[in-house]
């Protein structure tokens, strides 16, 4: 057992020190009938590293990895190229095997990273402050709504139809137990993101308006207009960003009037990983900082006056405030935040802009190719790197047939919105700088064949 350094001779000597005759003596508090006499039956025993690696590699081999196929999926998770140095650095034992920096004197590495991360995120989102990460975009979205409730002391939440349906579901789940009223509806397969209709739903009881930017269909909502409508009623504007690379090209939501901006940071540094772990980004106006959930890292000085960093404002948090905490979040996404921060450090604003421009360019090329196919209609001609197309028939079936041809062609609206027949023809197609002209042609050819 290669991970257990105690040897039998050690165990014997230690039991003697402890004054026990056997290990069973140490489990006396366990009721006799609940003590297992030996290893659980029917389960395999320990295995060599080689055997385990082979087993897991065989399972991995049953999946079609994105890098080995023309790949056009998005809908809240994006495949960008992550420089090799990112993964190299996050594997340093001093980052990988450290705990939450509760002892700042010997955790300045993690703490300085978090301070830099907070700064990067705040600038990216256009907010004054940002926290040290949340689990992911969807839970960050709920935390933002809960925070808006604490600030406005209202419970009516207006949600744009363009918000990712998993986010809506997550919010609905939480609200079911807190009494918040959640108003949302499914989107339509059309170019208009519905900003005007959204604005009319805001009233004096509205706690917040939640808008995704770009939205699930890839449309770009008019944030300044919505911000004005919300703030006119004393409601907060929460903006959700699921593709942060878009902010390399589009103005930051905070600059356009958002009060709270949350995001899914996975696209930068983290990778796809079948949906997790991901990285929740969370920024807001600094006047709301004491209502924020999650950890915050702040600058201070040590006893010799040297700059240093600590976790701060922990009186908001569960380990101090217990049931009065702003959130129950404890462990967050530290290592993902590190990966994000390193990738962003390499990119800088200029690199992010170039990555965004190239992603946009590939998406436009993809749309142009698909538009050539008879029966295919580009729903929203204005988009960043993801757009909706209408195909003849059920898009779920089209996606499956593309997969049979080894092409990962997009996300069907049918999968995201089961039961919404009016969306069944919708297919969301995303591209990034990793998309090649050959990929685009392969998708175009295969789709044309399937629809022929």
């Amino acid at each position, binding site marked *: 057992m290669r991970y257990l350094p105690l040897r039998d001779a050690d165990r014997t000597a230690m039991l003697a020190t402890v004054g026990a005759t056997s290990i069973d003596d140490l489990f006396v508090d366990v009721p006799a009938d609940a003590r297992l006499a030996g290893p659980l*039956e029917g389960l395999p025993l320990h295995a060599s590293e080689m055997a385990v690696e082979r087993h897991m590699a065989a399972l991995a081999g049953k999946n079609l990895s994105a890098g080995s196929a023309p790949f056009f999926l998005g809908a809240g998770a994006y495949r960008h190229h992550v420089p090799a140095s990112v993964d190299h650095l996050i594997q340093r034992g001093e980052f990988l095997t450290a705990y939450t920096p509760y002892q700042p004197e010997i955790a300045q590495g993690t703490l300085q990273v978090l301070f830099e991360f907070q700064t990067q995120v705040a600038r990216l989102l256009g907010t004054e402050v940002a926290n040290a990460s949340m689990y992911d975009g969807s839970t960050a979205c709920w935390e933002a709504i809960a925070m808006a409730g604490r600030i406005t002391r209202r419970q009516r939440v207006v949600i744009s139809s363009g918000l990712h349906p998993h986010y809506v579901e997550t919010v609905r789940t939480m609200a079911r137990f807190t009494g918040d009223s959640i108003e949302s509806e499914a989107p339509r397969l059309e170019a208009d993101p519905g900003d005007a209709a959204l604005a009319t739903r805001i009233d004096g009881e509205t706690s917040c308006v939640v808008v995704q930017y770009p939205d699930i269909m890839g449309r770009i909502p008019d944030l300044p207009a919505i911000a004005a409508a919300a703030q006119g009623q004393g409601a907060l504007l929460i903006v959700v960003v699921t593709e942060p690379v878009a902010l390399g090209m589009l*103005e930051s939501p905070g600059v356009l009037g958002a009060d709270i901006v949350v995001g899914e940071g996975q696209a930068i540094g983290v990778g796809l990983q079948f949906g997790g772990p991901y990285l929740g980004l969370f920024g807001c106006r600094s006047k709301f900082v004491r209502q924020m959930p999650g950890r915050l890292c702040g600058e201070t000085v040590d006893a010799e006056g040297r700059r240093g960093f600590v976790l701060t404002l922990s009186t908001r948090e569960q380990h101090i405030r217990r049931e009065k905490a702003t959130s129950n979040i404890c462990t967050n996404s530290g290592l993902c935040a590190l990966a994000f921060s390193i990738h962003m450090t390499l990119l800088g604003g200029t690199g992010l802009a170039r990555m965004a421009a190239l992603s946009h360019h590939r998406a436009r090329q993809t749309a142009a190719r698909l538009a050539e196919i008879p029966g295919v209609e580009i729903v929203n001609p204005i988009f960043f790197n993801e757009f909706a197309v209408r195909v003849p028939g059920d898009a779920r079936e089209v996606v499956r047939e593309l997969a049979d041809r080894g092409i990962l062609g997009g996300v069907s609206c049918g999968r995201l919105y089961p039961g919404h027949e009016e969306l069944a023809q919708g297919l969301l197609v995303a591209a990034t700088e990793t998309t090649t002209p050959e990929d685009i042609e392969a998708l175009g050819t295969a789709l044309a064949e399937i629809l022929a």
Partner: protein
Amino acid sequence: LEEPLIFEIGKVGETGVDFDRVPGAAAALPFQRSAPLDLPGLSEPETVRHYTRLSRQNYAIDLGLFPLGSCTMKHNPRLDEKVARMAGFADIHPLQPQQTVRGALEVISQLADWLVQLTGMHSVAMTPKAGAHGELCGLLCIRAALEARGDPREVVLVPESAHGTNPATAAFAGYRVESIPATAAGRVDFEALQARLGPDVAGVMITNPNTCGLFEPDLKKIADAVHAVGGFVYCDGANFNAIVGRVRPGDLGVDAMHINLHKTFSTPHGGGGPGSGPVVLSEALTPFAPLPFAARGPDGSVRLIEEEDAADGHSQAFGRMAAFHGQMGMFTRALTYILSHGADGLRQVAEDAVLNANYILRSLDDVLDAPFGKSGSCMHEALFSDAGFAGGLSTIDLAKGLIDEGYHPMTVYFPLVVHGAMLIEPTETESKASLDQFIGAVRSVASRAKAGDESLKSAPHFAPRRRLDETQAARKPVLAWQATGN
């Protein structure tokens, strides 16, 4: 050499990543940015050096014993990291057609099988993102079950010694939290608990082994009493490492328990996450488990049940805890860890973890006060207090003194039920030689604390930083570089 911030190293306008040029006309989008974001881009040499240098200001398991009680800082096997990076796991999209991710679904299913069997429970909700998220999932299952029978309740009972996440979670789930006192022996006071039970009590949240490092011998009795009044038992599984393979919580009447994969199953802590908190459920709570979940069909293959299938027989699922399907990257690591140890190895994990903790308890109880040490053995962590320190010294001073000895301190001032608590969890991945060296260091600092050694007040002296001014940090928070806020 002091390491500057990236904003002090790099220049805005530069980048350390090369991209192909975009040909053709520039894009025209609404709200298009007029200039790149004002973030510096560093070349790869500068970047590698910055983070390498920063990393060296951290303490970590890879550098030494990391005795944070209840955090289970054990060795993270490198095979797990290698497996998680296989393209077939790391580079798949959560919404790929299920036909292209059969192996991934199999991983979730195999891990779920192990978790159910190791805990003796009925099912497991895999999606929660961390322990506290799992607590929330469990409480929401309880709440959904109560509502389904038309019996909403208001109160959740939580022992004084619980992690802060327990009351925070209960409050977040819409319950009123009431505290249960502890006995002098550091256990839940069964009499007091029983007295409080009634039709308004939705459930109790109990940590077992508890945060004093002790097994709750009355857990089954408590569970029976709670069930008798129609409530449910939530068990905080943070300390499952102490009993895995030796005790199944399901046998003790538990209805829901989260498992911190980063504790018991050794996925890396990464400076504060990511975690992963699957929740095992009793038969009574199973129908309410959140979406999505992986289900093995009659043909043995695994399918993911999402919203589109929920209508067919899964209509009581209370909803979704988060987007997509959970912490896949942690599942691959945890399954790799579990298969490496096997049923026998996991049992050995618990035994060695408990043995190591008792060895520390008995090797230090002559120099440190062990509030519950006299009454018997502990489980996987040893609890001490600062009783007997002289010269105004307290737990924090011993902790900082340990830093100068080359160690990360233990958990301090927790659990709250012990004054000046010091909770030491060595884990099973420390050798006897390593424990002996650590014990020597603690003995040395403890002697100084009992002698009132003034120099401990200003410890650490040899760390990258001296004590940091936390008050200043909180009074006027500086949370971003040059953006001093307020």
